[in-house]
């Protein structure tokens, strides 16, 4: 997709590489090393092909590297499952539906339900907040801002992606919490009749704070990938829309957004992947509670990754197995999300491929 400009660049480069050799004229022994050798194009008998060359060596190397990925994945899966299964067998409750998490007791009781719920809810909040903002920034950078402004601004966005998540976590807990608490109290006062914003308090260290911190963290990824995609829209399609009498926004809706859709979905999924797997920022901002609760603003919430970080230190054998089992669930959630995204992209592939 969008390979038109780069293809033409390559074509030019290829031409330049070939021309000088042609220009020397054929049959004049123009080998660079020795004038007695036959010309590069041959002339004598056809030589045998080399049996062991850099070609075969590199081919073997890359095949081995590819095979290694599979081996590593299988090894990790075997390790995780072998640790998780004994803990699951020792569990005295249903792993999938139980809310409580007491795997270290002599009669272990633990379940993934509350954790999985918190993980998904915080990630959904993050995406709902971040994606519209990220797409607006990406469109601004690619189609509205003058280049002098777009380049430094894009750089700042990329810088934001490089901030370590523990910094976001600390900032969220120490600085961002107060404004979110004030906002939560305001929401509770005026919109308390909506269950999402109800409750008696205390507010602040809530799933909303965690979700908003996550939103700030996924914003740069989604923004810079979407910007790349939008910039790749073929100029001739943009011109076609403009020539039909489209305003700039109509041009974006007709040519840029449909063209960029698969890329934007991929960008959002990468952002979601980061949000789902995020550990330390949520461990620092949520006040832990093992409940399934749609209230966004009351203290509480938890996520699979944050729980692993919080509980691993004090866990015994069964406790560690239980945490590993929860990690497997996180892996399954991420996998389902990714496969859904691929399915969405795949469905319209015909339209995308024929465009290339």
């Amino acid at each position, binding site marked *: 997709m969008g390979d038109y400009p780069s293809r033409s660049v390559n074509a030019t480069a290829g031409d330049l590489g070939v021309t000088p050799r042609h220009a020397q004229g054929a049959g004049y022994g123009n080998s660079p090393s020795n004038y007695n050798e036959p010309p590069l194009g041959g002339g004598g008998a056809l030589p045998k092909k080399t049996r062991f060359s850099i070609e075969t060596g590199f081919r073997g190397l890359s095949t081995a590297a590819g095979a290694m990925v599979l081996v590593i994945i299988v090894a990790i899966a075997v390790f995780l499952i072998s640790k998780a299964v004994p803990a699951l067998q020792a569990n005295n409750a249903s792993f999938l539906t139980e809310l409580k998490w007491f795997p270290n007791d002599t009669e272990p009781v633990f379940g993934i339900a509350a954790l999985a719920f918190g993980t998904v809810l915080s990630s959904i909040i993050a995406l709902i907040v971040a994606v519209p903002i990220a797409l607006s920034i990406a469109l601004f950078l690619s189609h509205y801002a003058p280049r002098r402004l777009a380049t430094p601004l894009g750089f700042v966005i990329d810088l934001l992606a490089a901030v370590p998540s523990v910094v976001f976590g600390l900032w969220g807990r120490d600085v961002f919490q107060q404004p979110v608490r004030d906002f939560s109290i305001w929401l509770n006062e005026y919109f308390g009749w909506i269950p999402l914003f109800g409750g008696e308090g205390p507010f602040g260290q809530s799933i909303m704070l965690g979700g908003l911190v996550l939103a700030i963290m996924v914003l740069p990824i989604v923004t810079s990938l979407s910007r790349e995609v939008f910039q790749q829209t073929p100029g001739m399609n943009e011109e076609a829309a*403009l020539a*039909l*009498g*489209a305003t700039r926004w109509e041009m974006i809706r007709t040519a840029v957004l*449909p063209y960029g859709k698969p890329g934007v979905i991929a960008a959002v999924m990468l952002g979601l992947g980061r949000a789902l797997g995020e550990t330390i920022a949520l461990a620092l901002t949520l006040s832990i509670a093992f409940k399934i609760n749609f209230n966004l603003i009351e203290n509480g919430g938890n996520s699979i990754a944050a729980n692993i970080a919080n509980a691993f230190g004090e866990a015994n054998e069964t406790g560690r197995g239980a945490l590993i089992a929860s990690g497997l669930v996180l892996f399954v959630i991420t996998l389902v999300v990714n496969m859904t995204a691929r399915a969405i992209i795949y469905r319209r592939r015909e*339209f995308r491929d024929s465009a290339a």
Partner: protein
Amino acid sequence: MAKRIEASNVSSYYGSFKAIDSVSMTVEPKTITALIGPSGCGKSTFLRSINRMHEVLPGARIEGSLTIDDQNIYDPDVDVTAVRRMIGMVFQRPNPFPTMSIYENAVAGLKLNGVRKKSLLDEAAEKSLRSANLWDEVKDRLDRPGAGLSGGQQQRLCIARTIAVEPQVVLMDEPCSALDPISTLAIEDLMFKLKDRFTIIIVTHNMQQAARVSDKTGFFSIDKTGDPGRLIEYDDTQKIFSNPTQRKTEDYITGRFG
């Protein structure tokens, strides 16, 4: 359903570079006008100035006056999107929207202008595809991707997309340069057909094509690279190709130039 275009002393710039220098010509309604000349002589720039596509590039501007039936195209109060609806454009490389089907491509312009009613869209799609001589080839696969057609079919789809909004003038920027001779012939036949309804201005490098299809021909040229392009001669096609008044024109059409 066709209007007169009048250009007087039009000069177009890219930043500080002057691409064409005071071009004046009048294009009568329901005629085909061909613009010929060597590469870089400004004929495409002039063409893009007519529907204000020139100014899409940063730093591009024009001087002089361009009118369509005595209305100033470059009047600051004029809505530029209305100009482009009135003066449609077909580009050098076929550029159907890759994410859209054949049907969606054909009605893209109508949808942009707020037409939502299915029956109107269906009717316009069929009419424009028929006008573009494409209907019989695609009527059974309107929901297939527009970019999956052959190059010549894609270009006719782009023509259908352009004429679906019923413009007054159709500009064509080397519409056949990426096509084989058979597809080229199909497009030329189409131009004759469209001449009854639209004013057509076509840029072409193919002099036989200019001689075959056009009523009037304008010859552009430059003295050397970096100089602005000028309109050297503008007259009936018959006259340009048989008895041009300018020496430069004669050199060019007989192949003794550039």
